[in-house]
């Protein structure tokens, strides 16, 4: 996989709305580009939790996640002059953080992480366990318990599935943005996303299925 460039890419045809982007973001980014360190620190404070979770989910190692997060923010500041506002700042930041996290992961597990390979697991896509979940999982579990379930479940995915799901469904990047960030084709992103969603659904069954709620 080629390293993602730090230059902003053209916006996708249908960018998804993001819950994290606030109205004052362009003002903060402009101020930071002009050298206002405080403005950049405000952006860091706004996104540090999400960037740390992203790094943690990709690396599955707290020390690596912390390093990847730090390096992502520092690199973002250093290259801020290259950000021209054609994409969301957060999307641009996520791409940098993904690159840092993947480098950490590859360093620790050099023979296990390849996003380039066309993954054909030979697994049947048709779900094996089909059971309704019943009450909303958010109502059944305390927030901290649910967070633990979600993070331990996504950790069970193969890294090449995990990172696609992370970008597409947690960070809300578009399919095109995800493909660009990972150096994958759009069909490859779609294929891995479908498998990731189905695998996660199946793995979450053991916590959320209705029969366990009686």
């Amino acid at each position, binding site marked *: 996989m080629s390293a993602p460039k730090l230059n902003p890419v053209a916006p996708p045809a249908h960018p998804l709305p993001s819950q994290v982007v606030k109205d004052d973001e362009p003002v903060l980014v402009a101020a930071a580009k002009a050298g206002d360190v405080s403005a*950049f620190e405000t952006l*860091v404070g706004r996104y540090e939790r*999400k960037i740390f979770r992203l790094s943690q989910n990709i690396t599955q190692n707290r020390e690596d996640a912390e390093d990847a997060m*730090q390096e992502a923010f*520092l690199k973002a500041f250093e290259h801020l002059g290259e950000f021209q506002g054609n994409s969301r700042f957060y999307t641009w930041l996520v791409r940098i953080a993904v690159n840092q996290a993947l480098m950490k992961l590859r360093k620790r597990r050099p023979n296990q992480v390849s996003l380039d390979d066309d993954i054909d697991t030979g697994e049947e896509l048709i779900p094996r366990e*089909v059971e309704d*979940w019943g009450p909303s999982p958010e109502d059944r579990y305390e927030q901290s318990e*649910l967070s633990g379930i979600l993070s331990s479940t996504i950790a069970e995915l193969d890294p090449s599935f995990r990172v696609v799901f992370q970008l597409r469904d*947690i960070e809300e990047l578009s399919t095109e943005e995800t493909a660009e960030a990972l150096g994958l084709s759009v069909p490859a992103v779609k294929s891995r996303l479908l498998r990731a969603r189905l695998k*996660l659904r199946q793995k979450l069954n053991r916590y959320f299925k209705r029969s366990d709620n009686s």
Partner: protein
Amino acid sequence: MNCRNVVKELSNYLDEGLDTTLKASIEKHLANCEDCKVVVDTTRQTIQIYCNSEPAPLPEDTRQRLRDALKRRLRGVRV
């Protein structure tokens, strides 16, 4: 439309990336296939749960090391 095709188009259906004819065909199948309906509903919930989940606060020591790194590199402050 059969169950295999519904699963194949599941992501496109959930992401609302299908043309109206294919979407209608899937919805006709879902109205008559409880298993596929459950798969669609629980996959949709899977995405929503992850998408809506709030990241945990940064551990205090992690936050402090980030602050120190920013001070060192951005402000040239020794910490």
